[in-house]
């Protein structure tokens, strides 16, 4: 797939470029920034992340498992200790809670990995090391006939470098 990448030293420049690209409805825009910025989120108007669903499901599975294990074990081998009930749910709440947190957290991470599409094996096209340092980047995947427009928009909005990538 081919596209155009623009490197912006300034934040507001990048933002304006994105706005204009959005107006022109050309290509599919990906923005790189050394640190997350609101301004970018605002212009991109991306839908909220769905990672939270993973968290919820993981937590529910966790707490169920965390209760089930000790109860099943106690009943499997019923030995009285200290005159307590064989399967006493109160102390098992602690196990339930800890396992909930464990599975919940891990599934959250899983959610992150799935939706952020990491780990990725290669630095695909359209990335520049500067994006992790000081500069903002805009990567536009577009048809060949749109490339000129995109180059123009990026350059006019103050990209210090604009190059095609394939």
């Amino acid at each position, binding site marked *: 797939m081919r596209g155009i990448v623009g490197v912006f030293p300034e934040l507001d420049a990048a933002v304006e470029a994105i706005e204009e690209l959005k107006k022109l409805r050309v290509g599919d825009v990906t923005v790189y920034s050394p640190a997350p910025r609101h301004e970018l989120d605002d212009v991109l108007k991306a839908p909220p992340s769905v990672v939270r669903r993973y968290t919820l499901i993981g937590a529910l599975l966790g707490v169920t498992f965390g209760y089930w294990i000790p109860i099943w074990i106690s009943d499997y081998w019923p030995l009285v200790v*200290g005159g307590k009930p064989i399967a006493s749910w109160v102390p098992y709440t602690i196990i339930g809670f800890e396992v909930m947190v464990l599975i919940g957290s891990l599934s959250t991470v899983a959610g992150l990995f799935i939706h952020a599409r990491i780990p990725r094996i290669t630095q695909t096209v359209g990335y520049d090391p500067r994006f992790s340092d000081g500069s903002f980047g805009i990567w536009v995947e577009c048809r060949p006939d749109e490339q000129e427009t995109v180059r123009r928009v990026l350059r006019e909005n103050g990209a210090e470098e604009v190059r095609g990538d394939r």
Partner: protein
Amino acid sequence: MSESSTPVEEQKQGASRRTFLKVLGAAGATTAAIGCSSNTGEKLIPYLVQPDETVPGVSNYYASTCRECAAGCGVLLEVRDGRTFKIEGNPDHPLNRGALCSRGQASVQGLYNPDRYRQPMLRKNGKLSPISWTQAIQLLEQQLATVQSAGKAGSALFINQHESGSFPGFLDAWLAGYGMPAHLSYAALADGGVIAANRQSYGVAWPSLDFTAAKLIVSFGADFLETWGANVPQQLSFADARAKGADAPRFVYVGPRRSLTGMNADQWIACKPGSELAIANALGGSGSIAQAAQASDVPVATLQALATELAKGPPSLFLAGGSFDVALAVNGLNQKFGNVGRSVLSARPIESFEGMSSDAELMDAIERMRAGQVSMLLVRGANPVFTSPKSAKVADAMAKVAFKVSFSSYPDETSELCDLVLPDNHAIESWGDAQPLPGVISLQQPGMDPVYETRATADVLLAVAKGNPKLATAHPAPSYREYLIGRYPGGTAAFTAALIKGISSGALASERAKKAVVATTRTAANIEATSGDTYLVVYPSPLLDDGSGANKPWLQEIPDPVTKVCWQTVVEVGSSAAARLAIDSGDVLRVETAAGAITAPAYVYPGLRGDTIAIAFGRGHTAYGRYAMNVGVNPGDLLPVAFDAKSGAQAWTSTKVKVTKTGDFIPLVSSEGSARQHGRGIAQAIDARDLGIVPTPAEAEKTGGGEEHLPGDASHEFLPGLRAPVAQDAQGDLPSDDNMKGMYDPKHWSGMAKRRWAMTVDLARCTGCSACVTACYAENNIATVGAIHQSHSTSGLEGQPGANILRGREMAWIRLERYFEGGETLDESFETRFVPMLCQQCGNAPCEPVCPVYATYHSPDGLNVQVYNRCVGTRYCSNNCPYKVRYFNWFGYGEPARPQYAWPERMNWQLNPDVTVRGKGVMEKCTFCVQRIRESEHRAKLEGRAVEADEFTTSCAQACPSNAITFGDAADPAWSVTKMIADKRAYHVFEELNTFTAVVYLKKVNHTVAAGA
């Protein structure tokens, strides 16, 4: 490499009355034939031809006689696969009725002692080196021949440990054959004065005593629960008397030091040493109270009160220790108040004490040695070098004797000086008999083949005699056993029959006449004449006796009942003296007399007069094996050679001393934490007057609560946890669904949940003697940890004996706690309460829920089970145990390769095959002798019957010479334990913690009011 390697099966024959007789029926008859295979014990190969009566994993019991002291108690030797591993009292024996003291039980450690002589030894260029028996016997023959030919036979000397039965006569006959004088029958620290006085008053050495017939007991320093006379029968009778509740006798102890016996007294009259006579006379009316009070430094009122109490004429009993005069005066009192024939049974004397030589006779013999008038010295069982005062210089005297023969099994101080050692068999390896009571013969049979290459002295003497053609005819018997049978009334058949029970009626014709009193010409003791600022009381240790117990780790490790110190000799200092001289427990003191000096740490003890110090005799050996050597100091070093003029008995309280602080400090090797119970009601007591009165809560409130009214008061309607075998609170909150309850369901086929094993401890009976502790060590393979070589480093405190115990790491599953009540101020009197503390087998055990791996849990029959193999050693259970009765294996006490190994080779032969040896890093505790429970359950199952009530009991309960411990099934009214639990005095320790313990204590009963009122 211990018994655990031999095949252990589920059941062994137990001490149940019925079954052991069945076994013995044949066992006794074939004893000699079963050369119990001690040397093949290591092999795992099953018998090809199985010896009769020997089933692997099944115990046989042989009735025999204990030889640790002269009394001659009957014992049962429990033998498994050719090894004797436990000694219990013979229930049929009239003297000890199944009970046995610590010393008797520890004799197995003498049997397997790693330091015993392996074979005969001969002194070659200065040191003893092994020789063969044939050589040894030849050598002895030659020596005897030379002595005879030189015509010096008459000046030979044979010193034998005092014992009753046929041996003394046999020995004298043998000696006579060589023209040698009769032997000296020596018992160190025996109460010679009392024996002499008794013989004068009653014509017998030692009358039996019936404490139950008395309402008032007055002891003038007679420690009848320790080493004074035959302690086991005396303790049995005393406990029976004290168990009578309101009718029980009041006990007054008169003496400068409150001994273990004194601690059991209701009143202690702390008189000046040597002033007992004045008091006795005053009470007898032959002296004025005022003078007595003046002489004895006791308030007139105290003596007056006692006199008035006597005047009311309650049936009483007077006992005396020490000098002839006191004993005579006390016998006079008994006659005056009509106790003879009532509580003093002179018609039923303890024969064992007849024929004892006096210390003076020994000293005369030693002087003869010193003068070079002794041609040959033979010693058996006695250790005069250690037991005589250092100032007697016995060693020097012995050096003057040309040829010295020892028959000792152990490298003790005396045998180490001898030229020829012919190691005797241990009592458990040899034949013999005793005459404990008139008309009672107690037989002694071996429990096994000799552990080492030793031979019974009697057999050696026979062999020697046979070597001499002139004497061969005089000794026809091929062996001592034949000899015994020969002179046994009724011959072989009767003898064999009698062996089954170990006793029979009849009398042994005694060649030794009752000895008359020998007044000594030697210096009489005069304590006031000696120089010094403090009186010195030297007394035989209740556990080590005259020091012969010192090579048995159990006896070294079990804390002294009074001071609670082990592996150490302490100088007991009275509280007032301590306050006066600013002495604290552990301060090292230097004690000096004209005879010598010792240094030892102080122990501050409220039960001692301010002008007196006391030191226990028994430690401070310079030989006698790894457990005894260089442990503690020997107070004998301080004593002058002084005697009781009339009886020639060594006077042990005979000198004043000079006491100085060295400034050093040595921490005491003690099991004592706090000696006060801080009102926590662990050891509860009730006054005889209050018996039967149940205080209402309101009254309890009025009396200001106080420990007598803590939760656990007998006024409680029921005892939680013992209400039912499956009480919800005792057995867990079980699901309603039966098939979820598993074995906890009483309807379960195993029926386990129908039972609730429980125990009662009657504090009115308990005297604190610690025999139960020894029994527990023996039964449960408990490691001793205090020996010097068991500490993991040699620097500083770790380098001294008892190093591990300095860190509180003793392993005693049952311990005797000794609490003082009252006496916070110096002039106030104090009371002592003993509590045997063991795992309480809680219904709701705090230790169980905290174990992360189910290593401890609650069994359906109410036991608090400890699974050693599952234990990972978090020690959380111990933290959570309010009674602190769980013990941790800090080192590999069971691993032979380690310095901490508790059973060096052959000591491990004593290990109980039914109990595992615990590994490093696991927790252990009292199991209620679960091996005995399961064994009798299995036996009952095999015999297709139910376990009968009181069919078996735990080791501690079995041994207790006070019958204070009762064990059984609290859920079954047939067991006597259920009756005990119903007693009004019953209480649980820390009941407020709702642990629902299965161990129930019965309150001690105090008798504060005058008897006969």
